[in-house]
């Protein structure tokens, strides 16, 4: 794995991102609540520039006419083209099973931890490419690219 310095730590404050090019790939580096994550800037759906998307959370509702809750604020990236939603921390796309026909999407990604609040959702068909991110000497954000 090749390590690349992508930014000084203070260049990407919480909630912000930086998009860089490494070896022909463009990669978005995100700061989510103080932790850094890196995703390929290419949506697995139709190839849109995923990392230019809006960062949001999930609006959840257990049933029609019931209560709405908002969860995972700042951790969900929406593709700027079709609005596909991806977990910034894992690259996983998520579906609300109440809104989709579950059996049509049998793609699962092994080994990804499922946060508890995601219990109402099912994994979607896509996983964005993610990269290891570390902080070097508390000064630089470093991305490892295979």
């Amino acid at each position: 794995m090749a390590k690349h310095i992508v930014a000084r730590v203070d260049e990407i404050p919480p909630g912000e991102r930086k998009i860089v090019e490494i070896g022909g790939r463009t990669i978005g580096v995100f700061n989510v609540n103080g932790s850094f994550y890196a995703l390929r800037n290419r949506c697995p759906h139709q190839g849109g520039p995923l990392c230019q998307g809006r960062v949001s959370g999930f609006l959840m509702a257990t049933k029609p006419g019931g209560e709405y809750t908002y969860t995972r604020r700042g951790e969900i990236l929406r593709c700027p083209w079709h609005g596909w939603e991806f977990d910034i921390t894992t690259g996983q796309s998520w579906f609300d099973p109440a809104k989709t026909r579950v059996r049509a999407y049998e793609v699962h990604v092994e080994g990804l931890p499922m946060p508890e609040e995601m219990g109402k959702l099912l994994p979607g068909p896509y996983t964005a490419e993610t990269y290891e991110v570390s902080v070097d000497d508390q000064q630089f954000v470093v991305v490892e690219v295979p």
Partner: protein
Amino acid sequence: MAVATAPSALLDRPSSIDVAVIDTDIHITFPSPDVLTNYLAPEWREHHRTFGMRGHQGSHYPRAMPNAARHDSWPAAGGPPGSNLGFVQEQLLDGWNIEYGILNPLVGVGEQRNLAYGAALARAVNEWQLHDWVEPEARLRASVVVPWEDGELAAAEIDHWGGHSAFVQALLIIRTKEPLGRRKYWKMYEAAERNNLPIGIHFGGAGGGPITGAGWPSHYIEDHGGMPQAFQAQVISLIYEGVFERFPGLQIVLIEGGFAWIPPMLWRMDAAWRKLGAETPYLKRPPSEVFREHFWVSTQPMEEPLQREYFRQLLDQLAMDDRLLFATDYPHWDFDAPDQAFPIALDPVRKRNFMAENARRLYGLP
């Protein structure tokens, strides 16, 4: 340790399309409302500044995305998506190697309550398309926007531009005040036929009535997902009212309305015609036959069946290989990428026809 650099391209991948591409649905808009003032007839400028546009704006649902646009389509130089020719060239025409693109400005002209102002606006928008877009960019062609709620005013606008090679169709929006087969619209069809211009009818708009036959829904998703019902209503009206018996040269392009609904609706229309046709004795042929001779259909937003193979069956049932037209809908959020839009691998003939050759024939492009 290497230091990463700034991205050198807008996208992380080159387009992998290997045939010519004609994009039949591109949306442009004004960089600022003032732009139009220069093109408006002098007697309407004061009205434009003082009163401005008054349609049925309350009919529109708030979009999921600002301007219903891709987030990456806002020009760095400022202005809304689709307002900057240089960025449209870079992001769309050059980015995807588009051979020709058809401009469909959705700017509310036909929905104006003041019909005379609507007609003046239509002329101004058409002048703006010509001078600011088609003249500086040879890959673009324009659509004649018309004040469609008045058949005679719409006909006059079509007659004005009919002989100009920059304009390849007249443009309506699917949600009109009345079903489009009604006689109030016939002068417009007569003019389109006379000028050998197809009429494109695009997704959206606000004619004052709800999108459904059962009142007003709650959400944008119902408006967006339910739009085919407006297209169905117009096809039913145009065919059963006998528009194509009256204007046999008229061609209609359904833009952004989907197409999976077409085969079963034509079955039902044929069945009704066999049983109830006495009510419309001027309709001499099965509706499905009329449809396949007079309608063209754009592909975006692409139908996405649960099993990809259903898409091949759909194409067979549709039986319109010579009338399906690729479109991106740039810069709107439901953009279809030319190299990834179709859910199945198309055979070379279908691919060439859908991506460019059908549109080339329809619009008479070189």
